[in-house]
């Protein structure tokens, strides 16, 4: 069971404010993207954040953005300075996004961007190009955490597990509380779509007034299994508030994962140092055995040097690993060696040595830093890059055995950690909401604790989920209006029904005009019922367009109900999604 211990699934609207957008743009600049493009990205993302109504779907936004960007004089000047191959790539991308070809082309291009091809993984790792920027924006612009999660999980190995880290970027006090609670709630919901494969960590930012309360609630009642720290957002780890958090985690063996590289997000340049590992020595002495993962190995720029800089964060982490049993590290966003050459050779010399070191080899973890890593390369390319360069044993160690140890995921279900035990209870209590069967470890743990718990799940997994209001509402409409009374299957089976089994279907036996009338009537009924139940239209659709899209779709009886559900998801915005995209403003918002 490969485990990725470092991912993010928060979309732009769920996490970022105008101010924190700046830090994201800084990261793009540090990645080497030119000012002219970052300026265009700023305009794009700011326009999304400023929206008070529904934003168009990501493909539509990217379509417009790329078209305008290609034609912008400043970008044209930039293109003149590019190497011919890269320029051609950008211009081809731009020309494919004309109105004439339209959204289908955009979807295909974007899909190609995010589709990982194993053969292309090496090339993807070696180079950073404009497609990486488009791919990154495509994720950031996703309308909800659920959408980002789906993209992440689609790229994991079949039985792969992820640790999803929330992020609390706050001004302090009660600021943005509703936004953060919304992020916690929506992230927790993803557990139901991938039970046993999605383990969230709750971010603690002690600038927030009730950070401890939110953390405790997340761990006890929302399925969270660990704590994420990000001190460079503007708080110190050696404070009274943080010691209270650490004592709580220490007592219950809750793992912590801390951002630990000079890059990433920071409140201002002076706060970068707050993420340095050297602040932890007194804390680790005070809480012996406390599990802390210092992420990013302190910055991969150190590991590509030989010898390792003695005053580097990486060296400090290695020293702490030697002194304290609970200290871990991960290789997330370690892209520094990917350009090849000596830097790559040095990096893997260090890594292989450490994976042979009996003191440290069991505490190095694999993580990708999805979706931020998409600025640089695809998720699957990151996996492939390390799998190809490490021995099978070493790769298995960092992706399976070590993460299990860190998470407290014992091979024996009766010996799960305190947080995982609460996670098991959380899933069992909400078994009706699960869209897939639990992973084997979770199924066993539930059975051991609670006996026979029923999971009424669809074989279609999250593609046909009770937790998706488009699917759930469509099912109820079809059940009550379009399925024969003698054959109204439960939700889990209904997704596989073909449209030709619904009662509107008379295509083979009625004249075209009569069948068209049935089909149009059906399309209208779907629209009338879903809007009566509170659905509104996605930004690029109105009532007539939604009905027309349904009408065209219903003409093919080979489509299945699950496909119709996906179409309704594209056309309509349901109340749950509205809440996902536009959380209530915080109490102090003007």
């Amino acid at each position, binding site marked *: 069971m490969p485990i990725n211990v470092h991912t993010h699934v928060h979309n732009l609207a769920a996490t970022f404010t105008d101010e924190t957008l700046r830090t994201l743009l800084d990261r793009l600049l540090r990645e080497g993207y030119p000012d002219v493009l970052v300026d265009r990205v700023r305009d794009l993302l700011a326009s999304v954040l400023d929206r008070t109504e529904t934003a168009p779907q990501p493909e539509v936004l990217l379509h417009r953005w790329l078209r305008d960007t290609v034609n912008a004089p400043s970008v044209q000047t930039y293109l003149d300075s590019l190497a011919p191959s890269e320029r051609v790539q950008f211009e081809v991308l731009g020309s494919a996004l004309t109105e004439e070809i339209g959204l289908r082309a955009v979807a295909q291009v974007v899909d190609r961007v995010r589709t990982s091809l194993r053969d292309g993984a090496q090339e993807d790792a070696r180079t950073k190009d404009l497609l990486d920027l488009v791919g990154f924006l495509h994720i950031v612009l996703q309308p909800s955490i659920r959408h980002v999660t789906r993209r992440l999980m689609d790229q994991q190995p079949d039985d792969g597990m992820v640790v999803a880290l929330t992020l609390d970027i706050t001004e302090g006090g009660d600021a943005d509380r509703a936004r953060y609670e919304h992020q916690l709630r929506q992230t927790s919901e993803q557990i139901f779509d991938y039970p046993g494969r999605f383990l969230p960590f709750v971010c603690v930012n002690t600038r927030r007034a009730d950070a401890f309360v939110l953390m405790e609630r997340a761990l006890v009642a929302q399925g969270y299994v660990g704590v994420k720290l990000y001190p460079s957002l503007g708080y110190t780890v050696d404070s009274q508030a943080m010691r209270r958090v650490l004592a709580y985690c220490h007592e219950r063996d809750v793992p912590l994962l801390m951002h630990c590289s000079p890059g990433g997000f920071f409140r201002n340049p002076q706060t970068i140092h707050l993420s340095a590992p050297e602040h932890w020595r007194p804390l680790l002495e005070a809480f012996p055995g406390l599990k802390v993962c210092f992420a990013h190995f302190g910055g991969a720029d150190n590991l590509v040097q030989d010898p390792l800089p003695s005053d580097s964060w990486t060296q400090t982490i290695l020293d702490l690993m030697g002194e304290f049993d609970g200290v871990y590290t991960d290789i997330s966003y370690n892209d520094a060696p990917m350009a090849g050459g000596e830097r790559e050779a040095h990096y893997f010399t260090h890594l292989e040595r450490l994976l042979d070191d009996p003191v440290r080899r069991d505490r190095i973890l694999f993580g990708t830093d999805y979706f931020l890593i998409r600025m640089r390369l695809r998720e699957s390319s990151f996996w492939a890059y390390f799998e190809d360069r490490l021995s099978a044993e070493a790769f298995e160690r960092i992706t399976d055995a070590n993460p299990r140890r860190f998470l407290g995921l014992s091979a024996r279900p009766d010996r799960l950690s305190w947080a995982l035990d609460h996670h098991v209870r959380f899933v069992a209590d909400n078994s009706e909401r699960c869209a897939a069967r639990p992973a084997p470890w979770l199924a066993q743990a539930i059975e051991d604790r609670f006996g026979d718990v029923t999971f009424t799940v669809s074989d279609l997994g999250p593609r046909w989920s009770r937790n998706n209001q488009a699917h759930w509402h469509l099912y109820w409409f079809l059940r009550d209006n379009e399925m024969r009374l003698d054959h109204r299957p439960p939700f889990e089976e209904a997704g596989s029904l073909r449209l030709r089994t619904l009662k509107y279907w008379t295509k083979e036996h009625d004249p075209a005009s009569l069948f068209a009338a049935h089909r149009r*009537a059906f399309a209208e009924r779907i629209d009338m019922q879903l809007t009566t139940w509170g659905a509104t239209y996605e930004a690029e659709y109105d009532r007539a367009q939604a009905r027309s899209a349904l009408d065209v779709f219903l003409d093919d009886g080979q489509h299945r109900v699950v496909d119709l559900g996906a179409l309704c998801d594209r056309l309509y915005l349901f109340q749950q999604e509205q809440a996902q995209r536009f959380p209530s403003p915080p109490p102090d918002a003007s």
Partner: protein
Amino acid sequence: MIRLHCILLVCLGLLRAEPAARAQTVTSFDADLAPHLLTADRTWAPGLTPDLRLAAEHAGFSTSWFARAEAGGPLLLDADLATEALSVSGALGIARNFFRPSPTPPPPPGAPTAPPPPRTGARDFGRVAAGLRLRYETTQTFEDQNLTGGLQLTYSMRGQSGWARLIPSVHVAAEGALPIRADARKAVGAETNGFVLLRGMASVTPGLGAALPPDWLDPLDLHVYVDGRWEGATGSAWRTEGLDTAFYAAATLLYAFRDAVGVVEQLYVRWSDGRVPPAIEAEPTWTFGVVVGLPARDSRPGA
């Protein structure tokens, strides 16, 4: 067939005048095929009923009006046995759906599934559409072709339960017709001028299998279709031959597999009698057919 397609394209071109943002286009050739064997007067003929969306179907409608081009009709290898017409039509009109959505939202996803929650309470009273239709109809041999245009009224109803299943969908039209080619009329010495045409058709699918006890008969159903027309002012020779009125009735017993058996979606046997002008043959026929489903293609814009 080439002429059939040309007229379809003309209709599509006219509909292109509609605001593009509100329109949808089916770009694919539909993969539903219904190969069948038809017998009439002790003669057997293989046939095929493809969905003739060979170019594109451009359609759009708002909450109150619609515009659409359609084509359809069975093709037989022995065209002389054909009792139905091929047609291409374009329509413009208004529609009103009498569906009453349920105000009661679905239960929360976590609600117990047994016993099943009650129905949410939507009511369906059908849909009425009225408007203008321009239609080209032809025999398969193209020896008799008409261009018709006029007013139409369609009531569409697909009842789910009880007596509602027995309510037919009905289409009536009053049109003027202009023969483009009229070999049959000439053969009987009839005039080939334009004429008035009244048409009516109805169909119903009562859900036969649901009324029968065994579960495996649930997918069984009966589809009944009738089509009648009366042509006015067509001259005495045509009336004398009894060709100014036409009646067609078909009853289809079908078994629609919930999961396809290979590519076979449906088996059916159909009895029909009469004719759909401009077809002249009016023999009783039996048709034994299957509906073959090929993988669906997604024609949604942006998909």
